[in-house]
């Protein structure tokens, strides 16, 4: 059940104060640079997985329980966010 990166916007907003869907992520596997809103989003997997739209490698993973959020970003070589 693949959705678009913007479906993960709410989940990511709990971690990042800025709109993560606008952040440019550079894929650690293939080097493609795209906004997270355009990534492939797999929700309820049981957590959230965002995959590179070009090579389908995992960009980031997010999981949470009542009082913790885990975020794994090793699939992003870098994240670039424009400041307001």
């Amino acid at each position: 059940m693949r959705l678009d990166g913007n479906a993960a916007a709410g989940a990511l907003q709990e971690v990042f104060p800025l709109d993560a869907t606008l952040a440019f992520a550079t894929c650690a596997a293939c080097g493609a640079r795209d906004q997270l809103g355009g990534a492939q989003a797999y929700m309820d997997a049981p957590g959230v997985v965002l995959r590179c739209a070009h090579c389908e490698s995992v960009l980031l993973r997010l999981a949470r329980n009542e009082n913790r959020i885990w975020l794994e970003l090793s699939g992003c070589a870098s994240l670039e966010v424009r400041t307001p």
Partner: protein
Amino acid sequence: MDSRDEAEGVRTLELSVPGWPGHCAGQHADLRLTAEDGYQAVRSYSLAGPPRNGTVELTVERLDDGEVSPYLVDEFRPGDQLELRGPVGGYFVWDPSDPGPLMLIGGGSGVAPLAAILRERAALGSSAPARLLYSAGSEERLIYREELDELVQPSYTLTREQPPGWTGYSRRVDRELLAETVWPASENPIVFVCGPTAFVETVAELLIDLGHAAQRVRTERFGPTGK
């Protein structure tokens, strides 16, 4: 809280949300319902109307096997409460200074964020050329019809049944239909596609096939559960 019926099984909720910071057309909110025993369900809905002080509009389509939409469409009434997280999803937002013309393609209730974008474009007095292609099963299932006819001259396609005398399209969106309704890739339109997953995937693939750059096609898949 107020509401209005847009079509059979489709309802727009006007929610009073004190402290709502405003939003951009195209964004969505995550809505959370909690039952008395603590059970929770979360769904995403596009923000339908323009930002007004502390009021948020969401258009919900009842899905027959849905868990949340039947409650919101049939049960939810003034005085009831729910939780919203948002606005989120700045990726699916149109930038009025975009040099290319604006192309909006919606399937079913996927037209909701696209209508919001058109309303905002009108409110800004933008002269950016805009077109809408709206696919629905039948005329009864079209929402915001009058408003859309005023904002832009939509191309409609009714895929399951058409009224007598119908002059619009009457089939599922295909390559030819897109070639006739969408600006050619050479004009560099920014395209927003929203609706059920299968619809979005078909349209997006055809657009790439027609030469549109992937970065110029923004998609918002609803997913099979309407999320």
